[in-house]
């Protein structure tokens, strides 16, 4: 027997009763009225059972998992694309489905890497995209341009020349990075976006400013919505993560720990007393515990694990 949808008016009544009775202060009278309503029609009871089942399922999952999973951001771009596509499909003549009439879009699900995950993928135009730990982005190629919305994290993009001559844009809330072909590192911080060019040229366009800034190979700058910083040279070891390495030269330990922490779940706490110790070297990111052990051997520090996910780095008391 095929299920039939509950009529909206009944669903609404059931919802009102259900929510009302969730209140611990619901009166006995209200409870009795609700029972009477449920009993008065099989659809009423059916609607009630759906609500109950849904609530039970909801509580089946630990809240700290359910909430971020179910309330995750849905890409606004994708929703707009979906609307456009479904309107086109539902209406009009058969000709709408011909390739040349539909907007030529190839879009993918939101791309994400977990903490500590790195991923590389080839895009439909042949460009190579490297995603670092904790990155979230959307790819939106169209006939006019190749766009990548970077919501979080860090990428290295090897943007190839496009047979269609479409520009490549990396878009963040600070502004956009425009290139025709380049090898570029883009990292999103909370308030700004940092861009470093390894090969080729890019143009930075802050969102709220008419100025633009051109960067060539070996250069780096930061961008906020209001404008771009001055140009510096590409930081030492900036692209080392692409090869799975963390490469530093005389970096303050606190900064090093902060960077390392991006690749690990949990807490890495650095004692302020040793924050200014300097560290240099190239470290393999596939085993962050090994890096922590190396710290204990090369610096006067003590690494202690409260749990697997909580590590303290303190001054070593000899």
């Amino acid at each position: 027997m095929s299920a039939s949808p509950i009529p909206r008016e009944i669903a609404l009544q059931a919802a009102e009763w259900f929510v009302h009775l969730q209140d611990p202060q619901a009166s006995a009278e209200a409870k009795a009225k609700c029972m009477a309503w449920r009993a008065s029609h099989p659809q009423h009871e059916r609607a009630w059972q759906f609500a109950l089942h849904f609530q039970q399922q909801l509580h089946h999952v630990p809240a700290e998992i359910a909430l971020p999973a179910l309330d995750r951001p849905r890409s606004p771009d994708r929703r707009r694309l979906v609307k456009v596509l479904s309107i086109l499909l539902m209406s009009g003549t058969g000709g709408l489905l011909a390739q040349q009439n539909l907007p030529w879009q190839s879009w993918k699900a939101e791309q994400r890497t977990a903490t500590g995950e790195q991923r590389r993928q080839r895009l439909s135009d042949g460009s190579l995209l490297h995603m670092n730990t904790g990155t979230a982005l959307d790819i939106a190629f169209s006939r006019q341009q190749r766009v990548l919305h970077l919501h979080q994290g860090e990428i290295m993009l090897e943007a190839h020349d496009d047979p269609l001559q479409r520009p490549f844009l990396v878009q963040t809330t600070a502004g956009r990075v425009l290139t025709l072909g380049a090898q570029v590192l883009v990292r999103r911080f909370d308030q700004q976006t940092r861009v470093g060019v390894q090969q080729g040229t890019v143009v930075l366009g802050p969102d709220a400013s008419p100025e633009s800034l051109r960067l060539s190979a070996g250069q780096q700058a930061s961008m906020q919505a209001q404008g771009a910083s001055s140009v510096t040279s590409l930081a030492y070891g900036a692209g080392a993560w692409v090869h799975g390495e963390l490469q530093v030269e005389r970096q303050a330990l606190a900064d090093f720990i902060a960077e390392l922490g991006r690749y690990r779940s949990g807490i890495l706490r650095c004692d302020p007393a040793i924050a200014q110790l300097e560290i240099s070297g190239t470290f393999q990111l596939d085993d962050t515990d090994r890096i922590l052990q190396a710290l204990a051997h090369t610096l006067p520090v003590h690494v202690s694990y409260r749990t697997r996910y909580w590590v303290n780095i303190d001054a070593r008391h000899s």
Partner: protein
Amino acid sequence: MSTTSPHQEVQALYCAHHGWLQGWLRRRLGNRHDAADLAQDTFVRLLRLDQEQRPQELTRPRAYLAAIANRLMLNLYRRRSLESAYLEILAQLPETQVPSPEYGLQILEVLHELDAILARLEPKVRQAFLMAQLMGSSQQDIARHLDVSVRTVQRYITTAYAECIVLASSTPEMP
């Protein structure tokens, strides 16, 4: 009226349009493997329709097939986005709260079921609903967070439940 059996009708559609549909999907997905899977799923879905859900005649079969395939595509993206969000959440949890593999699979299944329904809600409605049900937030707190009145929050929560009832009771995933 048609004198052929439903299976024969679907088979005729398959022969005439399967190749086209697979190409259509491949251009959108950029991926042969997914395109082949979803093309198959589209026809399987057609086979599963009851007599009353099946359209009497198809003047534009490709539009109809594309509509089904489109819905399946959106579902695929939604499922993948849920799964990747789920993995990321697990990666951030303290060790004591990470579920065992078997339990984790169960949780994921339930999440899929919930997500399929919640995805259809307006964002603020969904947020109000989840904050009330999962966080036990007060209506005042939710109102402040969403920048709406308490009255609106009450309406959101009731609407959310009503939508869930309608959606859960409908035949899933009709084009």
